[in-house]
């Protein structure tokens, strides 16, 4: 069996209040995007491949799901026109369907299921037609049943009406209170009703009251109370002495000091009252604001500092580079190979000349002393593809993923202690998150100094 998931963005305008600019399928429910629930369910139902079709751009969905390797299922993508009927969409995707049984999730964002139930044999025995649905929002099957006998038990499967922020809030509350064990949810779950993500800092006097779901990279500062019935997204800071109860805090949100968020949805600088549907865009960043992961004045300042140092180094090293490189190439001590790496710019690649410098003789040592093997990389700092110092650039392969802030020099080179790639990655990641422009200047000096002592410079 295969699965086709069809969404029409125009049907979910209310979601744009909660997470503006996000595809509806990427809006999280209990910190798990809607699309992931569908992928889980498709696997439970015995699908081997999924095609996601949308009349909106689905680049973000494709970036999130990629080819489905994370779930061990093939995921592909296609676009449709807003005016396309279901038959037209199936016709357009006939190659994907290829006479197989197809489960079509049409225009639904979510339905209840239970991960412990047997959907595989149930779906294999069902005749074609609608399984769930109402008003053009259906879960249906095409093709003939595979199994001849009906499954003995009908597994739990029920629709959910999701037409407003209030219904979204009620659904999240229902999951949190009654159905946590029906789904695979993100985070560590050492005790019932409590899911906590990675890199979560909970200060000593902060209090967590179950049931709660807390995402990754969350800071809960002193005196705060989280819960009961709180869902905290990823990259969230809850400042001192604030309370978040019966509320949803979406990703990248800062909750200011001594605030009370109760029965609300907070998303960036927007506060939504699910009961009345009223939303308020806050103008006070110290009360409620969005946390920007990239960009902003700090990043701009960092880029300016990196750019200035890169220009200085380019100017200083120009003469040694022009003199030493031709000589070393003639001697066979300098070899260059161009490789494609992930760029610092999102979804971009950059071709970098990787130089191997063999330290034989004084001239090679001098070239290594000046880090001339990285000279051409300095220009990529000016074009924004690399930072001056950051994590080690990662070569583009089918499996590889972009690292945080690839740089000409790496923090691991500055620290000198990492013994293997994993150590280096940890050091690079730590500094990429915790660095500042002044620390970067010092770390670049250290990296330049440490590279002098390396055996072969690459």
């Amino acid at each position, binding site marked *: 069996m295969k699965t086709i998931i069809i969404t029409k963005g125009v049907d979910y305008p209310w979601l744009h209040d909660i997470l503006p600019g996000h595809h509806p399928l990427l809006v999280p429910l209990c910190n798990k995007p809607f699309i992931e629930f569908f992928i889980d369910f498709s696997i439970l139902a015995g699908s081997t491949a999924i095609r996601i079709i949308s009349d909106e751009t689905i680049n973000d969905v494709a970036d999130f799901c990629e080819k489905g390797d994370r779930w061990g299922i093939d995921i592909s993508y296609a676009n449709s026109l807003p005016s396309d009927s279901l038959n037209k969409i199936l016709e357009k995707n006939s190659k994907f369907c290829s006479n197989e049984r197809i489960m079509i999730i049409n225009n639904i964002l979510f339905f209840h299921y239970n991960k412990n139930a047997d959907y595989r044999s149930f779906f294999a025995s069902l005749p074609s037609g609608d399984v769930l649905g109402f008003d053009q929002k259906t879960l249906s099957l095409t093709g003939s049943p595979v199994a001849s006998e009906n499954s003995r038990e009908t597994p739990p499967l029920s629709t959910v009406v999701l037409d407003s922020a209030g219904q979204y809030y009620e659904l999240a509350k229902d999951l949190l209170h009654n159905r946590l064990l029906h789904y695979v949810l993100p985070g560590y779950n050492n005790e019932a009703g409590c899911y906590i993500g990675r890199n979560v800092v909970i200060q000593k006097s902060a209090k967590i009251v179950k049931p709660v779901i807390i995402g990754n990279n969350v800071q809960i500062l002193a005196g705060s109370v989280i819960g009961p019935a709180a869902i905290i997204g990823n990259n969230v800071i809850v400042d001192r002495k604030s309370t978040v109860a019966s509320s949803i805090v979406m990703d990248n949100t800062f909750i200011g000091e001594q605030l*009370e968020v109760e029965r609300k949805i907070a998303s960036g600088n927007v506060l939504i009252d699910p009961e009345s549907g009223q939303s308020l865009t806050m*103008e006070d960043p110290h009360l409620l604001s969005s946390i920007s992961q990239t960009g902003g004045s700090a990043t701009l300042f960092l880029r300016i500092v990196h750019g200035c140092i890169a220009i200085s180094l380019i100017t200083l090293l120009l003469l040694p580079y022009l003199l030493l490189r031709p000589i070393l190439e003639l001697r066979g001590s300098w070899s260059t190979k161009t490789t494609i790496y992930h760029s610092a710019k999102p979804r971009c690649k950059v071709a970098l000349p990787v130089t191997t410098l063999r330290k034989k003789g004084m001239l090679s040592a001098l070239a290594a002393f000046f880090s001339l093997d990285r000279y051409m990389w300095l220009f990529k700092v000016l074009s924004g593809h690399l930072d001056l110092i950051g994590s080690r650039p990662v070569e583009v392969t089918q499996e590889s993923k972009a690292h945080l802030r690839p740089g000409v020099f790496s923090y691991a080179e500055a620290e000198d202690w990492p013994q293997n790639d994993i150590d280096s990655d940890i050091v690079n990641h730590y500094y990429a998150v915790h660095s500042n422009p002044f620390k970067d200047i010092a770390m670049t000096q250290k990296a330049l100094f440490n590279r002098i002592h390396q055996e072969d410079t690459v």
Partner: protein
Amino acid sequence: MIFQLDTSTDTTIGIALLQVRIDASNCNELQKAFSLWLQQSANIVFDCSALDFIDSSGLGTIVSCLRKALEHKGDLRLAALGPKVSLIFELTKAKQLFSIYPDAASAVASFNAATAGQ
């Protein structure tokens, strides 16, 4: 801002109709006006029916007005908070500081009821 005195009962109550927006740009104006209103009556109702937006400076000003009214042995009561303004009052816990009424008439009546009870 429109200010008027209600003298229909024994207690003189000031009723101020707040403007659409109170923020850093105009909160000083409210602060100054409130000092003048206090000279006419220590019991004041802020009619917020027209108020659509308030930021933290505006909220700080209203809290400071409450403090001044209490210092003058009076009270500041709020009436007809809109949903957006109400959200800010809930978020900052300012709702716990004020007596809030659905409309100006019931806020005025609450002063009179308190006087009658004494």
